[in-house]
Structures are given as C-alpha cells and as structure tokens.
C-alpha cells in the first residue's frame, strides 16, 4: 500500500467519521434525554436533503445552496418538535414506552418517506456542491466541498457542546437526561425540554441530510443506511458523554474506510454489524461508556 492510498483511505474515513459524528450525536441527544431510540432519524435526514434541494437547487426554487441548507435546518427543527408531540409525547407515561416509541417512530419514518415520494417522486436528485475545486495539504487531497463539510460539522458539534455545557437551557437538558423526576421537581419544564431535544436532534439530521445530498444521490429512502450507521456508532461509543459518539464515529468511519479497501464493499457492512453485536455483548454501555448517562 502506497502512502497515497493510505492518505486516500484516511481522508475518506475522516469525512465519513465527521458525517457519522453529526448523525450519531443527533441520535444520542434524543436517546440520552428521553431514553428512547428515534427510528425516524433516517427519515429526518432525507427530509433535510429534499428541503435543501427544493429551496436551494437551480432547477427548483434556486435561492442558493446556503439558503437551502439554513432553511432545511430550520424546517427540520420544527418538524422534530412536531413529531415529538405526535409520536412520543402521548406515550410518555406508558411503562413500555421503549417498545412503543420504536413502533411509533418507525411509523413516523414510514409517513415521512412516503410523503417524500408523493411530493418529489422516486427519481434521484443531487444537491450541487457548495464550492468546487480541491485543496492539497502535505500530499493529502480533499475537495473544498469536503473541507466545508468538515469545518461545518466541527463548528456545529463545538457549538452544541458549548450550548450543553454553559447555556442554562442546555444545562437543563442535561439535568433532565440525568434525572427526570428531580429536574421536574426543580421546576424544569420537562415536556418543552424533550421537544427541544427532538428539535435539536432533527436539525442536526437535517444538516447531515444536506451534506449527504451533496455527496450522493438523494432518494426518499436515503436515510435508512445513515440511520443504521448512526446506530452502530452510538452503540459502539455509548452515550456516557456528549463526546463518546464523536470518537466512536471517527473510529467507525476509519474502520469502514479500511474495510472497504481490504474486505471489499460488500463485506464492510457485515463487519460493522458483527462489530456492533460484539460490542453489545461485551460492553452494552459502549466502549466509552459508564453506567450513568448524560448529554
């Protein structure tokens, strides 16, 4: 293996890892706060991509890629809060909320994906790259588009981390995640914070959708694969800390990049799932896990 190939694999893993980090953190925000798994997260990604395309793309409304991306994030935040109200809130007090929420969010994903088919049809689309050209640094080549992606994701995750650590609302969200009853006794508005985590999570999915739509073809079911990858990442890293899925995302991204090179494209997902089962058996709380959970 030449140095160039290694660089190629590493940058591929880096970009994948960054995308996974964005999606998995979004998934983890809901998991830690509400204790449920949102299976509509993949559909959120698809909706984000289509919204960005509709608003930004030249052959649709044509407001430009940036406007499309910002609008997509805003729309998804609203959608997330709305779906929380419709799919999760009515069942919050039920003892088997974990199973019920799996079913209702799966149903939500079904609804969103079919609405996408109804509105935009099944034909694949693609968002234009934000910027063209390539950047070279120390023998490693990255397209400027990927540089934008890496920078935006890094900024987003930093901003989210800062929000959760310093902002009073962010700290309230962490408090609710750690102990719902105690937080409620202290006067925190738990349902609103739940809706907010859903909105935040959906907004991040929307951003991920914009980037995925810009690198691959879009289809209404485009979220299924990223959802499974985000699942693997969250399992792999656990949700003990805000940063654990981020580390795990880069590890999984690198594993995927190397596995695609060595084991071939077909075997890579199988390896990842086998890895996920292994981690679940050995350390169900994730590799960076502790028993307690917090955002």
């Amino acid at each position: 293996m030449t140095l160039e190939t290694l660089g190629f694999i590493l940058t591929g893993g880096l970009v994948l890892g960054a995308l996974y980090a964005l999606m998995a953190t979004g998934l983890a925000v809901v998991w830690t706060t509400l204790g449920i798994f949102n299976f509509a997260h993949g559909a959120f990604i698809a909706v984000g991509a289509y919204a960005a395309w509709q608003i930004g793309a030249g052959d649709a409304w044509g407001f430009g890629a940036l406007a499309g991306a910002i609008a997509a994030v805003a729309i998804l935040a609203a959608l997330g809060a709305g779906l929380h109200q419709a799919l999760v809130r009515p069942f919050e007090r039920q003892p088997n909320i974990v199973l019920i929420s799996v079913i209702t969010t799966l149903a939500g994903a079904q609804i969103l994906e079919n609405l996408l088919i109804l509105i935009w049809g099944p034909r694949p689309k693609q968002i234009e790259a934000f910027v063209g050209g390539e950047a070279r640094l120390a023998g490693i080549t990255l397209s400027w588009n990927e540089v934008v992606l890496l920078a935006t994701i890094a900024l987003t995750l930093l901003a989210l981390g800062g929000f959760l650590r310093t902002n009073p609302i962010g700290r309230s969200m962490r408090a609710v995640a750690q102990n719902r009853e105690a937080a409620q006794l202290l006067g925190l508005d738990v349902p609103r914070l739940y809706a907010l985590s859903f909105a935040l999570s959906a907004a991040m999915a929307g951003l991920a959708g914009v980037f995925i739509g810009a690198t691959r073809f879009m289809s209404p079911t485009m979220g299924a694969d990223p959802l499974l990858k985000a699942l693997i990442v969250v399992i792999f890293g656990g949700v003990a800390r805000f940063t654990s899925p981020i580390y795990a995302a880069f590890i999984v991204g690198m594993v995927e990049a190397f596995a695609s090179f060595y084991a071939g494209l077909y075997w890579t997902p199988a390896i990842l799932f086998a890895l996920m089962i292994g981690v679940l058996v050995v350390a169900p709380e994730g590799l960076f896990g502790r028993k307690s959970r917090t955002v």
Partner: protein
Amino acid sequence: MRYDPPFHRSTGLWPAVTAFAALAVFPLVNDDNYLQHLMVLVMVYAIVAASWDLSLGWGGLFNFAHVALFATGLYAYGILAKTLGVSPWLAIPLGGVAAMAVAALMTAPVLRLDGIYVILVTLAVSQLLFQIVISQSDVTGGASGMVTLPSLKWDGYSFVRDGKIGYYYVALALLAAAMAFLQWLVRAPLGRAIRALRDNKHYAVSRGVPEARTRLLALLASAAPAGVAGAFYGSYIRVASPDIFGIGTLTLLLSILLLGGAGTLWGPVAAAFAVTLMSEAIAGLGPWREILIAVAIVAVMAFYPGGLWAAVQELREAAATALSQMRATRNRSTRAAARAALTGGAKETYIATPHGRIAVADGGGKGPALLFIHGNSACKEAFARQFEAFGARHRVVAFDLPGHGVSDNADPETSYNIPAYAEVAEAVIDALNLDTPVVFGWSLGGYVALELAAREKKPLAGLAIAGTSPLALAPDDVARGYDPDSHFIFAGRQYLTRAEGKIFADEACAPRENGAAYMHENFPRTDGRARAYMITKFPVVNWPRQMRMLREGRLPFAILNGHDDPFLNHAYIAGLTYGDIFRGAPYDIQGGQHAPFFNTPEAFNEAFAAFAADCLARPRKAEGAAAGG
C-alpha cells in the same frame, strides 16, 4: 399446579373451530383466484405474527430479528430445494430448523441485554444476515435473489393448479399446526416460565426458573414456525429476494402483531386477515396506503394499546354484563314467588345504596336479628334452610351482593370489592334498623362479614364464618389458606364455561340434584366482573386489621366450616390465633362441604343456634364507636 382448562374446554374453542371451518370451506365457495392467493399470504403472515407474539408478547423479549428468522427459512428453502435438490417436502421443515439455528446463535447476545439493547442487537443480527445474503451472491443470488424455486408437487400433481388450492390447504394445515403448538406451549410449564420471566424476572429466577434455558427455548419455539412459514412462502411465491429483510416486511408484521394485540396469540391471527385484506383494498392509493397504515398504527397505540383483541374483549365484556343485568331484571319479576317460597315468605325490598340497588329479604320475625351474607356467584336464597329454621325465633335477613342475585350490576371499579360489600351490609343494617345483629358470612361473604366487623361502624352481637380462610397478607396467604389444587381458581374468573360453572356451583354449594337446582340457575346471572374485580381488588382490603380483631377477640366469633370443604386448607385455619372463638377452636361440621349450612343444615343450624344464643346471652357492649352509624 393451578387449574387451567385445556383449550377444548375453554370458551375459545367454538370461535376457533368456527373460524377454521370457515377457512376450510372458503375455497369451495370462492372463485376469485386473487383472493385465494391473498388468503395464502395472510395465513403465512398469521403464522409469523403469532409465533413472533410468543417471544415479543409472551416473553417480553423485544426480538426484532423475527422477520430475519422468516427470511432464514425462505433462503434455507431456496438453497436446499433449488441448489441442493432436496425434496421441497423435506426442505420446508428444514427451513424451521435453519431458523432455530439462527435463533440459538442469537440467544447469547440477547441474554446479556435488556430492553432497548435487545431491540438494537436483534436489529443488528437481522442486518448482519441481510449483508451476508447480499454479499454471498454465489449462494444466495445476492441483491437480485433466487428465482424459480421448486414448487410443491405430490405424485405428479402440481399444487399450483386449480387456483392453487393445494397451497391453500397446506397453508391452512400449517396455520392450524402452528396455533396448536403455540397454544399448547403457552399453557405448558415452559409457557408459564416464559411469562414469569417477563412479568418479574428476579422473582421468577428466585423461584427456580432457569433464565438462560427458558429464553433460549422461547426463541427456538418462536423461530420454528417462522422458519417453516418462510420455507413454505418460498415454495409458494418461488422467489427468495433480499427485500424480505426490508423495513416494509418488518412494519407490516409488526403492525399485524400490535393491531392484533401483543401477548394474546389469537389477536395477531385475526389481525393478519384484517390488516392484509384492508391494506389490499386500499392498494390503489400508492404511497398514501403506507401513510394510512402508519397513521393507523400510531392511532391504535394511542387509543387502543391492547390492540384489536382488547377491543374484542371489551365488546365481550359489555355483552356479558348486559346479559347478566337482563337476567337479574327478568328474575326480579318472574321468580319473585319462587324466592318468597324459599325464604319462608320473607318480604323482599330494594334499598338504594352507593353501590346500586340492593335486594334484601327480611323474614320480619320478632326476635334478635341474624344477618346472612352469601358467597361468590350465589344469592340470598342460599340461606333458605336458615330462613326456615330461625324464622320463628329471629328476624332473619339476607341480601344480594351487587352484581349477584336480583341486585343491580354496579360499577366494577368502585363496587366489586370487599370493603364496598361491607358498606352495602352497613347500608342494609341501617335501612332495616337491625339492632346489633349476629352476622354469618359464607365464603366471600365471610370476608365481607369480617370487614364489616373490623370496620366497627355498626355494633354486632357476634360473627360467624364458613368456607373462609382469614388472611393477614394478600395474596400470599391465599395460597396458604386454600387448596391450590382445587377449583378455587374459578372464584376469580370473569368467564366460566358451562362445564366450569357447573363444577364451581357443585363444589361451592351442592350438586344440582341435591335441591340446589335454583342455585345453579342463579349462577349465570352473576356479573363476571364481580368475580374478576373482587380478586384483583384483594389488596385494597385492610387484612391485618381483620386478623388483629380476631386475635384480640373483640367480639364473639365462630368458624363453622364444613369438614369436607374442598377449597380450604384446614390446617392453616386451625393454626391461627383467635381471642374469643366459639367452642375454643374452629368448629368443623361433620359431612359439611363448602356450604355446610346448605349441605348439612341440621348440624349447622344446631351449632349456629348455640353460637347465636351464646352471643345474645352476653352483656351488650357500650355502643360508643358505632354511635354515629
């Protein structure tokens, strides 16, 4: 072991027989080939959903790899029957074996995890299988799948011919076999162990249920029908496509399971028909169909978390309640004379209580009052022989509990429990101005009498019970106070078959021939909810207060059990401490059954008369506590 009727003795037999008979006749009257094709698919889905119910509903294992087990059967059939040339008839059961093998491998990760992690690991297992199928295109056909799988043939006759009628009957036979197997399993000790682990894992393990083995067997038993169904599905549609692993199949089967009602076994079978046929009816709507189904799932989860099965049960309960109330209303007028004859011409009046209209028979005699409280699913006329024996010297009073006899049905939440019945007894004492009566309670009525006395709202001259084990702790003491092998379990059952009702009336009172025909006739009038709610509301009773009262001997007390009572554990009753008990210990009526006052009235009446005389000879206590009434 607890009594549990075999299926052919249960109330589910006739609906099931009717449904299967209708399915067997269906192809003979149907000439729509497409509908017939759909019915075969429906039966396959029904098998998969019902077997999924075993692990998800009964076992509480959030197993999301069940569709993958179905797919395993499908691919096993493809590989065995097409690639290896095994006979399709052998390949179908082997599909079940293949699914069991995968389930066995899955058990290790599932056992280590709980709740959401089980969902995740089983999803990962099914994705792993999917990826293996995709990547091994030499064996499985990869993304395009396997086509032209061999179809079923018998002696040159292809099952595809004659509108696929052969496939229809094979599917029906498989469905019947799968349901028989699952029904047998959930009633077998293994089925109980599976449920015990779901309801309270730590308690079940501490009582000797092996967790690992039970979970493994639950997964294997639920995998086998799914694998067989998958293999049969392969022989029928003759294609094995990796699409089967997709979210579409999962959502369809999950919606069948949940709309039918998890943990009900038959609910998913009924739902398989409803969901598939309805979704086929709206197939023309395209994507709207998926949206409608998804909305329906959310709506059912929100408004009917128990699924269609719960709705059916509610309908059944409403019908049974209306029927029992109708019987009460009819008996009120048509059998008044017969009742009067049984109670020696006692005046029947109706009094309004917070627990509905209550029928009271008042013998109207001049002497001291005796109040009789009847037992579960009986009526005040059970004391016919006491009205006769004591009517001359006493004022004999008996009443029908709410939901019993000719009293009205009442709100089950508030009125079908022992404290509520005690309130009814207080209302009767008030309405008839009974002055410190001697109270006798039979069986359930014994608890009512104990509660009435322990509440101390009305002064009583004495208290006697029969067929009742005083409890200090419910439900634990129920297991000690009664014979768990007996038919005592019927006392808490909402629905009893005709045969079960007869057994219960025979053992609780007397066989029909022994002058108990009217008790048997009264039995179906009882509101089934009164039995079910009374038992589930056992914990609302202040049991230690009753036991304290007996221990401290706060009032004259007698236990006049039948010596041959089939329900009681006499040793338990003899072992309790009584502060003031008639003849020094629980007094057994020789030859008496659960209703000694009915079976052996002379011996009982003699003992009860002695007790009542004993009570009435004592000086009256100051009525301080009861003054307010």
